[in-house]
């Protein structure tokens, strides 16, 4: 991963954080109907955390990611 890639990912990550933050604030501002969106957001967030955890613990995936190029 070179410098350009890192910078690109950092910008996209920052954008995603602001976007999610805006979604949460918007959902709270639209109380009580905004709670529906908030519940959906929490559900997706929980599943995303599960996926990230599984990927971090998966040694088999690490092996192929690090050792196979072409």
């Amino acid at each position: 991963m070179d410098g350009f890639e890192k910078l690109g990912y950092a910008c996209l990550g920052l954008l995603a954080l602001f976007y999610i933050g805006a979604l949460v604030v918007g959902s709270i501002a639209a109380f009580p109907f905004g709670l529906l969106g908030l519940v959906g957001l929490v559900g997706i967030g929980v599943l995303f955390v599960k996926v990230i955890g599984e990927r971090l613990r998966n040694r088999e995936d690490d092996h192929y990611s690090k050792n196979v190029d072409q």
Partner: protein
Amino acid sequence: MKMTTQDEFAEHEIVATLGLVTGNTIRSRHIGKDILAGLRSIVGGEVTEYTKMLAEAREQSLDRMRANAQRLKADGIVGIRFTTSPIMAGAAELLAYGTAVRLRPRGDAPGASASEAAAKVIPKTGDNFMLERG
């Protein structure tokens, strides 16, 4: 574990067919690599992100097929084939399959030395056992 796309090995003969062995996987790259791949398609050239993805899938499916063959106590796999199918955008399924076999060195093959073949009993189907040639 010897593996080939041919129906038989040049240096070994098949003494038992153990059956079909498969190994499959579905792999994807992370969203950053998907974005890079999409941008790469604008300018053309090799999409290295997906080259790596398919290479990883190929090796993983081969390893899984080999593990299945080892569970059957096979010496080799013949007739290996690969097949792929699109599952979702940015992901690929790769299935490797072949026939697991037990082998013994051919008598006239370069690798078939007397020491490695001597007194090696290989069970065949049924009650008869065959003593390998030295």
